């Protein structure tokens, strides 16, 4: 198991959902740093270290991005496109985590090279279990080029 904690960037406009993710990761067996941004523009600013995200210490490059699709200012799909077309960012695994189970969204997400697509479940247990699985899979088992 990797000794260094991996930073997770959560892009989520709903503060409640962000809270859920945060609580679940806190409870998770893997301790990681979670950084939350509320809209697409902020996400890109973070990734490009613009404005208040200029400091790499406080805003490290994430090892996983959890991305919602319905986002203010810049839509999640556009954020995904921007990440995957940027050679510096394109290798970061992006997991789309949204309430939409629409086929068009799933298809477009994979066309934009999303690494995974999950629909937020309504049950607490299931949402927690999902976040658990995501954490384990992407943070423990999955290997990415360094």
């Amino acid at each position, binding site marked *: 198991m990797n000794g260094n904690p991996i930073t997770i960037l959560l892009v989520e406009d*709903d503060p409640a959902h962000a809270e859920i993710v945060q609580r679940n990761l806190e409870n998770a067996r893997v301790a990681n740093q979670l950084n939350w941004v509320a*809209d697409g523009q902020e996400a890109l600013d973070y990734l490009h270290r613009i404005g208040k995200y200029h400091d790499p210490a406080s805003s490290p490059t994430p090892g996983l991005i959890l991305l919602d699709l*319905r986002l203010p200012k810049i839509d999640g799909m556009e954020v995904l496109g921007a990440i995957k077309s940027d050679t510096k960012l394109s290798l970061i695994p992006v997991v789309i985590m949204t*309430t939409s189970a629409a086929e068009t969204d799933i298809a477009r997400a994979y066309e934009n090279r999303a690494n995974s697509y999950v629909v937020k479940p309504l049950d607490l247990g299931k949402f927690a279990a999902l976040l658990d699985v995501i954490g384990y899979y992407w943070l423990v088992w999955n290997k990415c080029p360094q």
Partner: protein
Amino acid sequence: MKHYQSIHLRWWLPIIILAAFTVMMAVSSAWRYEYQTAKLEQQTNDLLKSRMTNLQHRIEALLRLNQNELVAEEIADFGTNLDVNTLALVDEQGRVVYATQRVWVGKTIADTMPEFDMQRFADAQRDRRFVLNFDAQRDRIIVYQPLSLATRPGEIRPNRVGMLLLDHSLISAKAEIRHELWVQAISNLAVSAITMILLMLILQRWLSRPLNYLREAVKRISQGNFKTEIAISGSGELAELGAAVNKMQADLANARSQSLSSIQMLRARERELKKITDALPGPISRVDETGRYIFVSAAYQRWFGLRPEEVIGKSPRDMLGAELHALLEPHLKLAHAGEQSTFEVTIANPAGGMRDAMVTVLPDFDSEGMVCGYYTICVDITERKRAEERFRCAVEAAPNAMIMVDAHSIITLANARTSTMFGYTQDELIGQPINLLIPRSYHTAHSAHTREFFNHATGRPMGLGRDLHGQHKDGHEIPVEVGLNPLQTNEGRFVIASVLDITERKLAMEKMQEKNAELERYAHMVSHDLKSPLVTIKTFLGYLKEDMAKGDQVRIEKDMDFMAKAADKMGQLLDELLEMSRIGRIVSMPVHITWRDAVQEALNINAGTIAQRGVAVTVDGADISLFGERPRLVQIWQNLIDNAVKFLGDQPAPQIRIGVEQGERSTVFYVCDNGIGVDTRYHDKIFGMFEKLDVKVPGSGLGLALVKRIVQLYRGEISITSQGVGHGACFRFTLPEALKNGKTGESP
């Protein structure tokens, strides 16, 4: 043709033969007479020479013996058996010594016998030569026989030469010959005449009678009686002729029966033809080379009100009138040149009204191939013309552009709609290639498609799966839909293209696609945005249970706060969605309201937040009457003011300016603020449903979407102008439908 003469053989043949025989007989008799007289003369000549020489010797002997009496006897006897006219002995001086006529003794020759020529006498005496000659008629022979006379009785002196003179007649001998010949000729003629009579009888019996019989028979045959059997027996030429006539008669009878049946057939055909031509709806007439009708069918009466018997023998000009005939004239010239031609004409109907006809003028040729008149055949094409007119009217009245092109892609017909669609007049289109109406870039492909369509012509829409474009006279392209139909006519194959301008439809389609996308977005957002608070509530409900079990009071409050916010959000969302779904449906009666009233009402609704934030609101512009659903119109300003208040940011002196600008072409309302403004990148996005630029600002993200929907309902447009973040924002919109109806007072 060689001309032969005929005579009655039974008469003329015997007569000619008899005449010929008579002539031959005469010639023959003459020749025999000549021959026999010549022979007689020769015989007499020889006899006389011999007898005279003999007499000379005897007389000389008697003289020498001086037997003078015996001399006289000798001379007298000499004449026996001879036809002697005169026999005389003359002395050397020409005096008669002895003569058959005793009275002449002592006289001279000249006195007694003038028939004796003294010169010949002298010659014969001198030459002592026997001389014999004929008189001119050759009826007498005169002989001079010199002899020696005795000087005295008993003495003959040699130098005394006397002469025996003989005048011998041939008349009786010749007469006898003639008599004989006459008898012979007459007997021959008699025999000939009898023979000829017999010949006549024979000719009468075996030639004339059969010939007469034949003549009578042929006469009867010539009168048409072919049942005259000719019975001539034997094997002669007439029998053969009879047999030949019998055969000829049989052939003629046969030929006549054949020709009779042919004539009957012809008459039957003529009746059939008349039936057919009379049954034809259009008249048929035949005019001979003199320009007179020789036949007209029954329809002539129906068409021109003239019975066939009134027409036959008259000229077309007299019957049809000068005007109609003038139309016919050029075609008659063609017919006289041996050419067929057709033309269309409108003819007045005797019952009133007009009739359209197609007239074919057909030259008629005689057996030598010369034009000997013409036929005219008329066909009533009134119905066809009406159908054509109906077709033309239908095409003209069609809502689509209707274009007919021939096999060479030349426009032969275009209706009024084509003119309005493409900007050309109908005259400008007819005769032009169809490429005139097609953008240049499609010309090559279209020509190939046209050829292909003419080869496999079936009705079908054109350009399946492709966008078709026509080209207007001014050059702009028109999106079109084209239906093609082949049309086979007498003049060849055509294609009718029905062209529909689908500009409007395309626009509507684009609009619909936009709506569909919006609907999709809507469905998508509803599912996402409604589900999202639900997920929150359910999840925090789980946390709440855990936290209550743990007794963690701080977390319990936090959990409940998240759940309450999610429930509020959901309630607001549902309200706004309901509102959104109502737009387009009349929920309240349209009324007249001035825009200032609407603004005032909106300000009243938002009065709380405005006062809380300390916003200075100004309202400018003339009061304008609007007509529409009051709550909707108010909601426009309400939402815009609400939006402005929400995004005032940290502005220390917040302002909202509300007003109207009346231009020549449109009336524009505006709501401006001096708040945080909107990044130009998001100007389109902000009118989308559930679009929120700032998650921290309360709201569902439906407020501006609602405004846009209401503005569109009144056929208006809305836009935002903002110099960017920190420079405020200005929303401008139009409401033409509400203004129009506001002025006229009509319901939208």
